[in-house]
């Protein structure tokens, strides 16, 4: 609800005579003219590359692996839900591993549709999806730019040295296990 007192009346300022006659245009012209002779800040890209802050740059996604080298994703669809660009498509399946309930049988990200907002990273309960500092993303076809699970895992293999996994201890939600089992892997430690 916007109340009347929330509305601010902003009047235009009174103009001076010179402003009314558009003389300040000349000031602007002088500014731009001076810039012609200023030092250029262009970075000649492939030859010269800027260094990025690895921790928070939002580039190509990767799918993290857990300690056993398996995909860490549990196919909970949280990223797909959070994605404002609808660029993530997951097909879940029953996981082939004992300690895991669900896993992504397919995991596609349309990198062309993605807006690199990082919502998926925020939403992921197991820190399986992360954005890497890789930004030179090119492809010749649209199909090429739809990254599937293998490609995303590859990105992880490639970038693991540059940006280590945030929390490698989380390896998914465990639903099976023995009653009174000795050392059951702890789930996400979200509550309890």
């Amino acid at each position, binding site marked *: 609800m916007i109340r009347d007192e929330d509305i601010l009346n902003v009047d235009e300022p009174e103009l001076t005579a010179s402003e009314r006659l558009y003389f300040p245009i000349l000031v602007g012209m002088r500014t731009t003219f001076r810039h012609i002779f200023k030092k250029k800040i262009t970075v000649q890209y492939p030859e010269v590359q800027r260094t990025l802050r690895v921790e928070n740059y939002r580039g190509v996604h990767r799918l993290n692996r857990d300690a056993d080298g398996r995909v860490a994703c549990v196919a909970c669809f949280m990223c797909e839900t959070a994605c404002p660009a609808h660029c993530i498509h997951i097909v879940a399946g029953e996981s082939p591993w004992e300690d895991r309930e669900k896993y992504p049988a397919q995991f596609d990200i349309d990198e062309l549709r993605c807006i690199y907002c990082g919502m998926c990273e925020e939403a992921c309960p197991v820190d399986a999806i992360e954005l890497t500092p890789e930004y030179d993303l090119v492809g010749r076809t649209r199909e090429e730019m739809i990254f599937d699970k293998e490609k995303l895992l590859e990105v992880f293999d490639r970038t693991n040295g540059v940006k280590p996994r945030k929390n490698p201890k989380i390896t998914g*939600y465990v639903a099976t296990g023995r009653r009174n089992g000795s050392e059951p892997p702890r789930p996400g430690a979200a509550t309890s």
Partner: protein
Amino acid sequence: MPRESRGGSPCHGAGTDRSADMPKINIDNEAIECRPGVPVLQAALEAGRDVPHYCYHPGLSIVASCRLCLMEMQLPHPKTGEMDWAPKLFPSCQTPVKDGMVVRFDSEKVRENQRECMEYFLLNHPLDCPVCDQAGECHLQDYSFKFGHSESRMVDQKLKNPKKDIGPRTLLYQDRCVMCSRCVRFADEVSGTHELCIVNRGSRAEIDVFPGLPLDNALQGNVVDICPVGSLLDKDFLFKQRVWFLKATESICPGCSTGCAIRVDHHREVVQRLKPRYNPGVNDWWMCDEGRFGFKYVHDPRRIGRPILRRGGEVERPNWDDIPEIVTYRFEQAVERHGVDKVAAVLSPMMACEEAWLLAKFIRSVAAEATLVNGFVPVDGDDQLFPAGCATDEAKFTIRREKCPNRRGVEMIVSALGGNACAFDEFVERAGKGDFAAVWIVGGYPKPWVPKAMEKAVGEFRFSVVQDMFPNALTEVASLVLPTCAWVEREGCFVNHAGRIQPFERAIEPREGAKRDGQYLFDIAGHSGLYTGERVREMMAAEIPAFAEIAEAPAVPVHQH
């Protein structure tokens, strides 16, 4: 969703007529008028209150085991006789309403009980919502958010229970279970098959099946629906899609002539699952597995997707825009050459009433003496009554032998329009004798249906339009094959075995290249614009007054589950 329940009673037992002596009770200082005999919980739910409950289900017996719905109630003080709040809490699901009763749910005592209960339910819960299919429609989630503690005080190791395969279509995740016993009661009271039981006691209590007797009855899918948490899960839908992505469309099951009210949950034009809707007197809260899993043919790649036109020996793919002209021209030609009575239209009981009516009107407009045929009615065995082995009048649920949704509707239309009409067998017989030169045959059955005699008779037709879903002997030779949409791609109404006219909505788009039956029949019948069931129903109702009365399933109270 409107909060008042229309027509019937969402409570178990027969709904009583609204009479003058409706008890008035006072919930949280608010006077509420309710139907006699219902539990306070039901009255509160119908009044729009969100009272947490797990074990209570209006279709099942009451056990008052979850203790979540406890309320405070005023009773006469044992010494003074004055009405005062009783020191102990009462289960609102087990307390029937009584005129003048004063209860409250908004006291600290009640809330404290709800918090404690929720903490107890979550003691051993694995909190694996991200991988649980119930997430999004889970009452454990909702209630712990609304009524529970934000954290658990338990420091011990949680119990781990392995998931159990309790039947060919159902999985049991015991550690998500809240022991409401709805599933057990369902197997006992509705399906009458008694497969489920509770084993062990106290914190070790578990739902289980008897050894060698898996949960495998014709209604077992309902236990997944009534399970308030993610404990019982449907293998068919397992991990398919998260429920918050699903779009729900209200529909009617076409599996048999019961006409269960269902909800089609679909995502990106793919039907993901079917769920029953409350429809008193028809299917109540339930539906059968046959209907529940019977939608798979919708996405069968073998379905006919485009019209096929055979002209001489050539096969063409006609444009949808040209079809009304082709059809009209060819039928008029047939009438001219062979006579007005040589035309017939077979109206399939799989069609919606609107479609059948449009087709019948069209055929009668090109040939006034055309024969309208009540289409082939597939029949399978006998009616199955539930609870298993009960008498007909005691049945809580019936699976009918007629495996089509709309025999009554088609018959109503054919008889209302009058003129030449015949049954399907008679049609096949006469067709074999060459009585018909131009026919329009509608199929649309999910299973192969063409009788042998029919296959022989097809050679006699000079011009035939066949509307069907799968290729068969008819579509192989028909002059014009029109694809039929599955019911989820159409809209209209079905008339069930008891004459209830129930409308259903369109859930998904027809596959590429196809067009909705209603729409092309609408075009062919010479109307312009968009086909909607409602629009055609209005036209029908002007001629056949019976169709003015539509039976829609009543809305369920908001917080009922």
